[in-house]
């Protein structure tokens, strides 16, 4: 099995994700790690909350991975997304891609995170000192 998709309520394990995509056939691994930033447009962020429509989110992530496998010669692809409340510095998402050659790994990894942010039913709420906002909900 060359792909792994999980939506988890526990903290993500970066090391385990990287170990999972490593293989003797691969020459390079690109890993994207999202982290909770302490501010949005200069406004301090206290924490984030992520919610997912889990079965559809997994299905949409798998679609993105299938597109990726058609577009680039990659070997193993892993996407882990966390849900629940995350503090500043915690990791909402890890995308790891191994490939024989690094160009494919970089391009596939970037395609996956860019597309995930556009199509996968996961929602982020930002908590500020004076309120909370579902990100991207309004124009």
């Amino acid at each position: 099995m060359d792909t792994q998709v999980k939506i988890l309520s526990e903290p993500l394990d970066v090391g385990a994700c990287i170990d999972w995509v490593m293989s003797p056939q691969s020459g390079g691994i690109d890993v994207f790690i999202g982290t909770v930033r302490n501010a949005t447009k200069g406004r301090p962020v206290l924490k984030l909350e992520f919610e997912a429509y889990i079965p559809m989110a997994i299905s949409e992530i798998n679609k993105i991975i299938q597109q990726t496998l058609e577009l680039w010669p990659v070997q193993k692809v892993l996407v882990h997304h966390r849900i629940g409340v995350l503090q500043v510095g915690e990791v909402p998402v890890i995308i790891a891609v191994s490939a024989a050659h690094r160009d494919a790994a970089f391009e596939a990894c970037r395609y996956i995170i860019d597309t995930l942010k556009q199509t996968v039913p996961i929602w982020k709420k930002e908590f500020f000192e004076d309120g909370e906002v579902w990100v991207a909900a309004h124009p």
Partner: protein
Amino acid sequence: MIKIEILAFGIAKDIFGASTLNVDLSDDSSAGDLKARLEQTYPRLKQLASYMVAVNNEYAQDTLPLTERDEIAIIPPVSGG
């Protein structure tokens, strides 16, 4: 008449004040009909940047007919990652 249950996520949950919603629609209603009905009751839906209906874990066109057996969800603008 068909009775459908709607799952709500993100800001849609706040707008409906509920994470599931039961709606009665006339026979042969489509995803577009559902949106029109919801927008009547919950006009704040129209203020969203966009929103989609998902049927059985797939984004649905407005023309897609709905049945009572479908799993139907309202998908406001996503913001994962």
